[in-house]
């Protein structure tokens, strides 16, 4: 058995760049425990997104090992990877990526439909998720009628509604103002505490970093620093 939610060994991701190759991830060996509230930080182009995509089974490494939720992602068929994502992984994106034709309720309900959860239970779960993000009154709105902050809260609700083991959030605050950024970080921090969901961020936003309990700094695809932040709750008081 494996007690790590993510475990990588000598992870390498190369992209061809003309005659040379670009090492987006270079020898990354990292592991995350269940329940962590951690972030991969570093300047733009340092490989954060690449790492998250591989951990989320959306991309595969050039070489090296990556185990997610006890599964070696290299050996997963695309169908099994899809099943793993459906059951255990939630994504939050910089651009929210809500489904424009669906209402807030329907957007949040979507992952539950993929899980074939019954109607009554779905209703209850969506209502809970809406409560967690404080949007119970916007259930019937369409994404185009929401502010950026509201959209991202819907996206968070959509990611957490199925209570996945792991949520991967790539620059979730990049399109938000300071107030909304703090707002959603507090929400996610609470969900991490209350539901035990593991959150892993990719960010270069100082505001986000203040909430992280652990910061892994990538520079040019290499782990430069991996530190536990004691005063991770500091941001909440600001």
């Amino acid at each position: 058995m494996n007690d790590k939610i993510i475990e990588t060994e000598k992870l390498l991701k190369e992209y061809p760049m003309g005659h040379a190759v670009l090492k987006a991830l270079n020898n990354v060996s990292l592991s995350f425990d269940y329940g962590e509230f951690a972030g991969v930080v570093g300047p733009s182009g340092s490989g954060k997104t690449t790492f998250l995509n591989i951990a989320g089974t959306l991309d595969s490494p050039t070489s090296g090992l990556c185990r997610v939720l006890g599964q070696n992602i290299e050996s997963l068929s695309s169908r099994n990877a899809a099943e793993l994502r459906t059951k255990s992984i939630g994504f939050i994106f910089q651009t929210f990526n809500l489904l424009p034709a669906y209402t807030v309720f329907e957007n949040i309900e979507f992952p539950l439909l993929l899980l074939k959860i019954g109607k009554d239970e779905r209703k209850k779960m969506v209502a809970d998720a809406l409560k967690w993000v404080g949007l119970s009154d916007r259930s019937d709105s369409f994404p185009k009628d929401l502010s950026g902050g509201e959209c991202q809260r819907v996206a968070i609700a959509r990611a957490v509604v199925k209570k996945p083991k792991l949520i991967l959030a790539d620059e979730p605050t990049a399109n938000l103002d300071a107030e909304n950024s703090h707002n959603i970080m507090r929400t996610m921090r609470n969900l991490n505490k209350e539901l035990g969901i593991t959150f892993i961020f990719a960010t270069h936003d100082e505001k986000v970093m203040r909430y992280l309990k652990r910061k892994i700094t990538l520079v040019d695809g290499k782990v430069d620093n991996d530190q536990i932040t004691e005063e991770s709750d500091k941001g909440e008081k600001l």
Partner: protein
Amino acid sequence: MIIPVFAIKNTFRAGIKSWLNAFVLSLSIVSIIWLQGLYKGMYDQGTRAMIDAELGGGQYWVEGYDPYDPFSIEDSHGKITHVLSEMIKEKSAACILIARGMLYKQGRMYSILIKGIDPEQEILSIPSGILKEKNNGIIPALIGTRMAKNSGLKKGDIFTVQWKDSKGVFDAMNFQVSEVMKTTVQNIDNNQIWISLNTMQKIFNMHSEATIVTIKKDIKPVNAGLNWEFKNLDFLLQDMKTLVQAKTAGASILYIILIFLAMIAVFDTQTLSIFKRKKEISTLIAMGMTKNKVIALFTLEGMAYDILAVIIAAIYGVPLLIFTAVKGWKMPAGTDTYGFALGDVLYPVYSLNLVFWTLLFVFILTAIVSYVPSRKIAKIEPAKILRGSTF
């Protein structure tokens, strides 16, 4: 199944573009049903008229008779066999004698057919009763409206007809137009006059002879003996069928163009939609849908136009189709050139079968033009799309 529900939502909520595509689709559906129904009606109506006035339940032809060979008509007559004369007596058959002649009117000469029919017959809807002679020296003749128009003959006119009898002797006689019958069936109208069978047999020296024996509708043909061959309705209506099929094929150009436009519209929308919604597609994959499911979703989105199209088609198509079926379709003047029996007003016939096959045909085509662009989804790399601008 959740995918069809998503698909319908996506398409129904996509706004004006969806409705436009669906409208073009509905036009092709309605026009296919309408045109096919119109030609079905044309065939049914023409067939019915021909059965009533000309064909009955089928015809016995005397050996050698060929309606398309005017020269063989001279020899196309033969003794009515016992079996046939029994049927005629029982009023389950009527015989017709056909010969060639020349019609003279105001110094002009027309080659015509002379047809003898029993005034008492009840098999065909020809008003043969008026051909009964009244011993006033006038021999009544019956002509159709086309014949009247082409020859200039009117009711009451007297005209001369010359012919060669069975022994090859020329003879001539005067007839009076006692009636101009209105009929849609050209075969009993064009270039011909009808006279009483008895008179004709006498003047042509063809006693108890006939060319055609038409039996009553729904009567089983029997072996009529030597020289007489039975032609069933399938055979007799073959020309009509071929003609209507040719007309239908000609008219189908209209809906082939419409359906082509509709399919291009759907194909175009789907291609554009996949291109514009790469991020949405990648998000669906990130949330755990397999690519095949997303391909199914987009294919069904294209097919959801069918549902919209059926709704739109029902809104304007059903009243339109019912209206034309009840009120009929007024044929433009000069439709005689169609070459077969046609009323002034055509009543289209729409069957459930027709609707079913039309819809199935359109659905299959939409499925194809929706599926083909959707296959591109397999090539999308969600990791690449989702990293977005911060590449």
